[in-house]
């Protein structure tokens, strides 16, 4: 699903974010990405989402070589990827249901279908009773679950999460990771960047460890 072949990324000004990184993530697997802050986790995710282009090497996502994909197709790449952010990135002037509906509005689906699928996604994350609530009235954990509902609503084959448990207590974090596990069991590839090493270890999944922009370790699933 995701293949990196000797990928390097340096930003203008010379700072190196990634150096010679290679790995392959099988479809339907759940993988963690760890490393201290500044190790290159965010840059790696940005490359997969086509927010950034690799300076060297090849990034292949869902059989598409992002290096040769023109800019104008970047939205299409992102539509095929559910993304979950540390700060949720919800629209605070829209209800929970409308936030979840966003990817489907972009795809131009029928209103009736949008409504139905938004409710189904909210049901999956256990927030169906909050569909008409405003995001700011929800707790941090609830907002993150709205973000997950939005990411899975159009059933993308790939789910990315950048520090999804950043602001949550351990109990909630574990709950959230279980939710990701459920999603991955349905055949969705899940890649989660997290610095919460204890929790990552408990999940017994494959872990990619980045250090100073290099792939320092690749721990297989237990």
């Amino acid at each position, binding site marked *: 699903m995701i293949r990196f072949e000797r990928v390097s990324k340096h930003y203008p000004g010379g700072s190196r974010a990634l150096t010679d990184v290679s790995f392959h993530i099988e479809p339907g697997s759940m993988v963690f990405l760890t490393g201290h802050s500044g190790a290159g986790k965010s840059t790696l995710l940005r490359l997969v989402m086509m927010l950034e282009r690799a300076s060297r090497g090849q990034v292949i996502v869902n059989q598409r070589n992002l290096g040769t994909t023109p*800019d104008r197709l970047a*939205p*299409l790449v*992102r539509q095929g990827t559910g993304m979950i952010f540390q700060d949720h990135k919800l629209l605070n002037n829209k209800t929970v249901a409308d936030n979840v509906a966003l*990817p489907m509005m972009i795809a131009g*689906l029928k209103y009736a279908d949008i409504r139905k699928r938004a409710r189904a996604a909210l049901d999956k994350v256990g927030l169906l009773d909050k569909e008409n609530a405003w995001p700011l009235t929800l707790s941090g954990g609830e907002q993150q679950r709205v973000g997950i509902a939005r990411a899975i609503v159009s059933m993308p084959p790939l789910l990315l999460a950048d520090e999804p448990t950043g602001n949550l207590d351990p109990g909630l974090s574990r709950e959230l990771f279980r939710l990701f596990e459920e999603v991955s069991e349905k055949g969705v590839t899940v890649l989660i960047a997290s610095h919460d090493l204890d929790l990552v270890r408990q999940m017994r999944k494959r872990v990619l460890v980045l250090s100073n922009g290099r792939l320092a370790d690749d721990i297989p699933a237990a």
Partner: protein
Amino acid sequence: MVSISHLRRKNRAWLRRHSYSFFSSLGVLLQHKTGTLMTVLVLGIAMFLPLGLYVTLANLDGMNLHQDEWSAVTVFFKTGTRQAEVDRVAGLLEQNAQADKVTIISPAEGLADFRDASGFGGSLDMLEENPLPWVMQVSPPPGSTERVEERVAELTAYLNTIKSIEVTQFDYKWLQRLGRMLELGETLVSFLILLFGIAVVVVVANTIRLDVASHADEIEILALVGAGNAFIRQPFLYTGLWYGLMGGLLAIILLYTALAVLSGPLGLLLETYGTVFVLRGIGGTNMLWLLLCGAGLGWLGAGISVHRYLRLLRVGGQLGRH
């Protein structure tokens, strides 16, 4: 192979996205009444100024100042010409396509007019006989302002072939001046349309620029979840379109209000010239054009602002950075 049903589905999705932006942008504008009203007011006045001048000129042109008695050629017959000859010439002219309206003024009528107008009544009584000749006023056929000189020239040439006519007189200068003034006015209108058209684009562009800036977070989120430039741009473009449409509508309302207010005093003024005149508006087609142009300019202004912003969202840009 791309199937027809696939294309149809794509078209339907496109239509849904557009109808969504179309109505939601209107909804947002109506929500922010004060801001919208102020922008629309500026746009409406900007559009009203050239429109008002255009209508003024169209009305001046429509008054047919250059026709009828204004553009008539005055014909003086030789002294001693009999009425029978004058009537014969009048008959000839009435059958001639180069002449439209013929008015005969007998020496007696001429004298009476002169007596009234000049105040020389007493001295005129001392004359033993009427010194005035037969006079005739002949108008060329109606037509456009530009060609009137040509038509008058043709008419004069014809009149000069008639032996009993002493001299023909026509006030070219006055007509020329009117024609040139109308031309000048038209150039001014074109210039103003250009100038205020730019003003409309700039006003909308600036309003939308602020609008885009205040929605920066929202735009970022849209782009992150896979919205293309078109989807992000649409609501702003439609907002610009609505601004232009509302501005145009306001300009039309202002125009008709002005016409209603002015028609009273103007009627009184024209009455002193013995003219009955009805002020004309701009008509349905022109109204439609105005609204279309307004909408187009609004769209353009919004497009300029959004385009500048969207460059920040390109791959390798600022998108998604904290």
